[in-house]
């Protein structure tokens, strides 16, 4: 086990820069999830740590050892891939033990580690099957077994659950979390799936355009996004955004847009240095909107476009001044589509973003 450090790492492919000035320290035993959209550079970062991509500039360390230019086999990392990457011509047992055999680990030790991995991952029934005789979930467990028997300094997971169906994904997510806690190995995990990111991570790293947008505990990133990108990326359904301006009135700041006018709660007032009239974007989480009993001061009038009943909750799509807002409300009798509705806002949970996307909140975290 070891810590991992990236220092000003940059990666260019030809003229395109896919990772820039990437600085991150992952503590020993920590599970850090890199999350971002397609092409944000998250897999490239993982591959640079594994030694599967060269580093254009900067330094990569595993523990105290600089590994920037070491080949993959000398880095002591193990990786689990999206498509499992099992050797098709080898049975599960050989797939798991091959890396150890190549490292000339004694046979008795190989047998001990394979049976240990088989026990903790419940691999026994398919150890002697070839990959094509296994289901997706079984293959992925073999791939994880292959990683754990190596007892590496660092685990790398590159979207390992993306090829699985929803049920298996949930099951494997729990297994990965359990496994990582049990072996306590430092891990970097790449995903674009928010549920995986939120549930697995000790810390989240949100990436966009090859740059870190925010690093923090999942709940902190969710409740106090550093900028509009993070606010829109983390959370399902995504945060609602409304463009408008801030006006200073005798009793405090007011957010004014075409569709609504909201007096801001004192604890969510943006930085007082913000000049009156500043153009801002208001962000509201769907769960911070609710159906109001009647139109009134502080409510948002709109028309219901769509109601998606998901079971315990319902997603209401409401058109407000030409913009569509999504509210997540407890399921129950809902208005029919096209009906006029009013939404109330939890004013203590508003977010504000400047024209450049940065958060305008005073304290930088949720009240």
């Amino acid at each position, binding site marked *: 086990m070891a810590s991992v450090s990236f220092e000003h790492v940059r990666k260019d492919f030809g003229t395109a820069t896919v990772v820039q000035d990437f600085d991150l320290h992952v503590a020993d035993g920590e599970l850090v999830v890199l999350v971002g959209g397609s092409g944000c550079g998250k897999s490239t970062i993982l591959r640079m740590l594994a030694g599967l991509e060269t580093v254009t500039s900067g330094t990569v360390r595993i523990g105290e050892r600089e590994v920037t230019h070491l080949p993959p*086999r000398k880095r002591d990392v193990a990786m689990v891939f999206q498509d499992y990457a099992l*050797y098709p011509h080898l049975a599960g047992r050989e797939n798991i033990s091959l890396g150890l055999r190549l490292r000339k680990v004694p046979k008795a030790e190989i047998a001990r580690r394979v049976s240990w991995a088989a026990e903790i991952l419940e691999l026994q029934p398919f150890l002697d099957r070839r990959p094509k005789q296994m289901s997706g979930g079984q293959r992925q467990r073999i791939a994880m077994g292959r990683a754990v028997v190596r007892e590496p300094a660092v685990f790398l997971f590159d979207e390992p659950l993306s090829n699985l169906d929803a049920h298996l994904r949930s099951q494997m997510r729990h297994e990965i979390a359990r496994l990582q806690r049990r072996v306590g190995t430092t891990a970097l995990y790449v995903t674009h799936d928010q549920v995986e990111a939120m549930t697995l991570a000790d810390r989240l790293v949100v990436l966009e355009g090859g740059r870190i947008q925010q690093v923090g505990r999942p709940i902190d990133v969710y409740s106090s996004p550093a900028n509009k990108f993070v606010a829109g990326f983390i959370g399902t359904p995504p945060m609602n955004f409304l463009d408008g301006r801030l006006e200073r009135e005798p009793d405090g700041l007011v957010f004014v847009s075409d569709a609504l006018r909201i007096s801001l709660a004192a604890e969510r007032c943006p930085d007082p240095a913000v000049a009156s009239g500043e153009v801002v974007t208001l962000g509201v989480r769907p769960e911070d909107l609710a159906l109001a009993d009647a139109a009134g001061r502080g409510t948002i009038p709109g028309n219901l476009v769509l109601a998606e009943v998901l079971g315990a909750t319902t997603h209401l799509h409401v058109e407000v001044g030409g913009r569509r807002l999504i509210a997540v409300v407890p399921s129950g009798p809902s208005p029919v589509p096209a009906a006029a509705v009013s939404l109330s806002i939890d004013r203590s949970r508003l977010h504000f973003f400047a024209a450049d996307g940065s958060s305008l909140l005073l304290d930088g975290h949720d009240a």
Partner: protein
Amino acid sequence: MRRAVFYVVLALAAVVFLYPFLWMAATTFKSPAEVGGLSLLPDQPTLDNYRLMWARAPFGRALLNSMFVATTITFSVLVFGSAAAYALARLSFPGRGILNAVTVAVLLVPAQLTLIPTYTLIVQLGWVDSYAGLIAPFVFNATAILILRQFFMQVPRSLMDSARLDGMGELRILFTVFWPLAKAPLAMVGIFTFMGAWNEVLWPLLVVRDEQLMTLPQLLTVFSLGGGAGPRQLATKLAAAMVLVVPVVAAYTFLQRFFIESMASTGIKG
């Protein structure tokens, strides 16, 4: 009904293709009196033609020579061809694009065009009348490289990554990960190469004069040219031709499954 007509047509076509071969096989077991007939069943089957062939020229030695030469060429083409294909398909290095283009360009040059320069080179190297002279010009094959490269390009990158993380070097990845996956294209390249090397006549005629080094088709050609034209001679020549053709048919039968699989997967017509 349409199905029945279809099968009749197919059966007729099969007879048209198979009859000459079956006639040749049957004739090798016929006595001189029967050789001219069209029957596929000898009245008095005999092995005299084979005994005579074996007695009149060193066909046993030629068979061994052919085996050695064709096997060595096939093995070399598979090893060097797959190594080149792996590099061209999966490694990044300066000049890879140019090398790919050159490999394709080599296919456009007819073998007859390079015959004299290659011969001159072999003479300069002192490899006339040697196994090296028979084998060296064929150990690389552009077609093999292109077929294998095409297959190797389809192997998922993650499999290579995984192998590298497991501690494999490039050669080990090629032979322990790519080769088992590439059984079908390797079999196809192997069969084509083996058949080409086994049937090669022109090149051995150029570089080998020593009868002890002659390959089977070469010896057969020499034997046919000087063996006379009577029924006995014809049957003996056909017996020699059978010895030439049987190993290839046997190899094809054994590897047929891979061969057809590979044809289907690569989309290359045979």
